[in-house]
Structure formats: C-alpha cells, structure tokens
C-alpha cells in the first residue's frame, strides 16, 4: 500500500518536474549558480540546514559519486536500493521527500556540485556606519554654567560689600556692619520668588505629565529592532500588526508570525545596532532567545505546540476612559502608522513618539482632512458631498475630522 502510494507520488512529482522542464526555461549554459538557485535553493542552503541538509562538502559525504548522482536524479528510487546513508538522511529530515530531477543531466549536476564546492562565504558586511552619534545635552551644560555664574555673581557681591566696608574703615567713616545674606530682606524675597517659580513650574509640569508617557521606552524580553525589520528588511508594518486594519488593536504578533521568517533566518548579519543606552546588541543571540520561546531547534521541524508566548511590554497605552480604534484610523481614515508612532523604521528600540494627550488628538482631528472621495466609509454624509460639489465648501479646505463629529466628547468617551 505504502509503496503503491509512493509510486503514485513519484509519478505525479516526475510529471510536474518533467512539465516544468519542458515548458520552463532550460538552462543552456553550465551555470552552476543559476541551476542551484532554480532547482535546489528552495530547500537547501550551502552552509545552513533548511528543509534539507546543508550542501557544503556533500561530495565528501558521498564517497561514491555515482550514488550521489542517482540520488539527486531520483531519490525515491535510490532509497529503495536500501542504501543506509540515504535512508538515514531521509529519516533524519522527517521523511520530507526530495523533489525528483530526472531531467538534470550529469553535466548539470556536475556544474551544481562544482558551484557548491567553490562556494565561499560572503565577507562580513562592513559596519559602523550607524554608530549612535553622541547627543550633546546642552540644557545640562547651560544649567551648570548658569549655576556657576550665579555663584560667581553672589561671591563678587559679597566681596564688593566687604571691600566697601574695608575702604570705609580705612577712611575712618562709620560704615554699618553688613547684614549677613540670610538676614537680608532683599535676598530672602528673591529666593522666595525663585523657589515659587521653580516649584510651580515643576509642580504644574508633573501634574500635566501624570499618565502621559511620551518617550516611554520599556525594555522588551527580546531586544527586537524595528529598524532592522521594518527599515532595512522592508517588512510591512501590517505584516506583523495585521490587526490594525481589522480591529481596535494593532495586535502584537504571535510566535508563528515571527517563525514565518525565522525558521530560515537564524543569524543576524546586518549592520550593528545598539540599545538606547548605547550597548551593542548581538542580533543572533536575540534570535536564539526567540527559538527558546518557540521551542525550535534550527534544522528540525518546528512543533508550534511547544511554544511559550513572549510577554512583550505594551508601549502605547490609552487610559480606560478613552476609546480608540486602529481600524477606524488605518482603514477608513487611511492614516499612516508613522503619523502617530513616529519614524518606527529608524527605531531600534521603540519609544512612544506622541504624548497621546487629548490636546494632541483633538489638534489632529481639527487639522486632518478626511479622504472623502472614493471612500465608501463616508458615503452617508450626503449633504457634505453635495456642498463639496456645489462649491459651498472649499474643496481645497475639504472636510476635516472635526466636521464629521471628530471632536464630539462621546466619540471617544462613553
């Protein structure tokens, strides 16, 4: 029964491959690289175990080249010869059948094997281009300078008063004993006012800042760089945060989404990146952490039931008394993610970009024009559509979010 099934399989597979070769572009030249990329690269890498074994040194592992060639051409037939090495290999890789290549000529296989033999690992990319520039915090410098100047001024005033007394003594004039500064009414008044202003400033600022988290940048369980993923590798935001177009939440991706790519990507070779404090991050170690959560060993089939969820720390939080819906903004409003989240593609560690205060929301709702035309979502605003047509509403100004009720209290608070 089993052998019958696998014969059918073989026939189907070979038909597919035969078809693919008769209609597809047949490689004319003995271009090993092209042949490798076309036939082998989907499952094999040269230096990495993927669906199939790493192919570096494959000729050394097969002492009999004839056997290797017949294995490549038709592995299912070769397995039946009972070759121990081949059968072990087949079992080791979870009995995933290798495609059949009856149409590869010996010369083509030779070219592929030569390409594998001559292959050299690519040189490590030159890095250092994006070392974080030391940011000069001039506020602190100015603060210190002001303090020093204030101390100098204070000292000079004291010196001045002492000198005056000295010169008065010398001239024999009666000069009143200088009042010590802590009893001097002018000083006391001045210090009180300064304390009141400074204290008031910080109290107000602290009170306004209650519950606001601009620049909040928590440490995550894995040092995941958005810059590497969304910036350098151009993964779309919605690939991982697909919930943003369908639901209230942008949704933090589950492990299977990570593993879509990271089953094959198990080391980091890109430019160096750093934590916010400036410590260099070992990208490969971060991928290893992911594998620990996922319960995945590179080169072996992944069993998702072994995975433990990663407890990412949510950065953008709105208080419970505000309703916010991502899909409303992304899908209907067609707002770009970056409008509210900042240049995510440049952030190694994500920090909260906007303060998410009510003033910030309202301001955007007042200024932002909704895309009124060709947007089924707003078709019910018939009067506005008519006014736009008649020219009663300046089409250059357009319809702001405020005009369609975007600043009504109960839109967000209910």
């Amino acid at each position: 029964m089993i052998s019958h099934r696998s014969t059918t399989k073989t026939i189907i597979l070979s038909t597919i491959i035969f078809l693919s070769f008769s209609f597809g572009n047949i490689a004319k030249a003995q271009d090993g690289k092209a042949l490798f990329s076309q036939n082998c690269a989907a499952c094999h890498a040269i230096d990495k175990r993927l669906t199939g074994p790493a192919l570096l040194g494959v000729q050394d592992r097969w002492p009999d080249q004839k056997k290797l060639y017949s294995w490549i051409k038709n592995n299912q037939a070769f397995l039946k010869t009972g070759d121990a090495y081949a059968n072990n290999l087949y079992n080791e890789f979870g009995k995933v059948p290798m495609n059949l290549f009856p149409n590869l000529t010996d010369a083509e296989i030779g070219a592929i094997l030569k390409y594998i033999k001559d292959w050299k690992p690519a040189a490590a990319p030159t890095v250092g281009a994006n070392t974080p520039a030391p940011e000069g915090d001039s506020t602190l410098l100015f603060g210190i300078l002001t303090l020093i100047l204030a101390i100098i001024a204070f000292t000079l005033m004291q010196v001045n008063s002492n000198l005056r007394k000295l010169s008065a003594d010398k001239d024999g004039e009666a000069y009143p004993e200088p009042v010590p500064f802590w009893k001097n009414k002018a000083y006391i008044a001045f210090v009180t006012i300064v304390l009141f202003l400074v204290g008031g400033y910080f109290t107000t600022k602290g009170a306004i800042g209650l519950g606001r988290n601009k620049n909040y940048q928590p440490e995550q369980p894995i040092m995941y760089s958005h810059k590497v993923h969304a910036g350098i590798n151009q993964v779309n935001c919605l690939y991982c945060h697909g919930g943003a177009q369908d639901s209230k939440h942008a949704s933090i991706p589950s492990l299977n989404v990570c593993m879509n790519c990271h089953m094959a990507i198990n080391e980091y070779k890109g430019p160096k990146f750093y934590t916010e404090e400036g410590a260099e991050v070992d990208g490969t170690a971060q991928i290893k952490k992911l594998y620990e959560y996922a319960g995945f060993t590179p080169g072996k089939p992944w069993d998702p039931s072994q995975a433990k969820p990663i407890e990412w720390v949510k950065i953008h939080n709105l208080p419970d008394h505000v309703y916010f819906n991502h899909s409303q903004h992304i899908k209907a409003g067609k707002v770009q993610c970056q409008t509210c989240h900042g240049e995510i593609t440049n952030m190694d560690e994500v920090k909260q970009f906007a303060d998410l205060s009510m003033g910030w929301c309202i301001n955007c709702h007042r200024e932002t024009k909704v895309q009124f035309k060709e947007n089924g979502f707003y078709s019910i605003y018939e009067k506005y559509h008519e006014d736009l047509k008649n020219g009663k509403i300046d089409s250059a100004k357009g319809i702001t979010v405020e005009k369609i009720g975007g600043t009504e209290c109960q839109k967000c608070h209910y």
Partner: protein
Amino acid sequence: MTMKKLFIIALIVTVASIISCNDVQRKPSNVYIPDMAYSRAYETYADHSNLKDAGINYTNLPVPGTIARGEEFPFPLAKDAAGDTTNYFASKKIKGPVDSLSKSEYTETERLYLINCGICHGAKLDGNGPLYKGGEGPFAAKPATLVGDAKYEAMPEGQMFYSVMYGKNLMGSYASQLNRKQRWQIIKYIKLKQAEGKAPVAVANATAKN
C-alpha cells in the same frame, strides 16, 4: 568659610541632578485616578492566565467548526503528519470559491499580497523579494518563483491554498494573518498574474469586465 560650604552644596546638587538625569524612560509614569486609567474589564493584553482562579470559565476560541457569518467554508483537508504528503496531493482536486476578482477586490488583494507575500515572493512574483534579494538577503532559502516557473504555473489552486494554510517547507502558515476568503483571493490574484505573464491582453479584458 561660607563660600566653601556653599560651593560644596552647589557641587552636590549638580552631581545629583546629573546622576538622576537618565534620558531613557524605562518605566511608565504615574497616573491620576488609576481606576479610570486601568481597565476593570479584561482587555486584550491583560493577563488572562488567572481567569480560572477567579471563577471565570472563558475560552478565547470559538467552538471547533464554527463558521462566522459570510465566511467561506473551511478547507476540507487536515494538515499532513510530518513525512506524509497524502493531503498535500489530495488538495489538488479542491476548487476555490473565488472565480474572479472585481477591480476593487483586485486592488485590495494586491495590497494584501504585497504586505504578506511580496516580502519573500517579490512584488513581481518572481521569487525575489526584499528578504531574499537573489541570495543577498537574510532569508536563506529561495522563495518560489510564482510567475515564470512552470511548476507553480501548473499548480492547482487547491494545492496552493494548502501551502498557504498549513505552510510548506520553510514557508509558514498564513492562516493567522489572512482569512479564508483573503487566502483564496490572493491565490486567484497569483493565477491572474501568471496568466498575465503569458497573455497580457486577456487578463486586462477579464479585469475590466468586472
């Protein structure tokens, strides 16, 4: 004497302020009226692990076999066990529910393709997306060349759906990112693109018709 004392005090204040000044804000700020800020209800990212202890018997998943209103019927084949390919080959016979894409559906499906598939299979469906980049990118395996490779041009829709739903080799399952209809639509989109590669005029007519 007073000068010296003052100077020391100033120095201590300055040093203390420098030390306490950490640019990186790792902790969230305090909130005013916490019971209005933090949800009493169980929100999406709240800790759900202790629901049972609180006497709440709630399961996040619908009953197996549930079909939402308007949703496509489920794919009739289960995932093959490791090393087995029976259902993978059986899937060839399954026909998709999507026969054509209207203009707006086509645009939307193209958008979904570019987000979810284009990253590996390429915006031109040539198996050379930004993650592979002809072998330069981080993804080690070559993604399938969807347009231009006779194997994939001949692959029936059902088998493509099987691969998208359960994953194949190094491709993972996209069942969590795309719903059934979107998956079938994307496969239709690929088929349309493949046909376009062969006869550009015919598809232009087909899409215009809708």
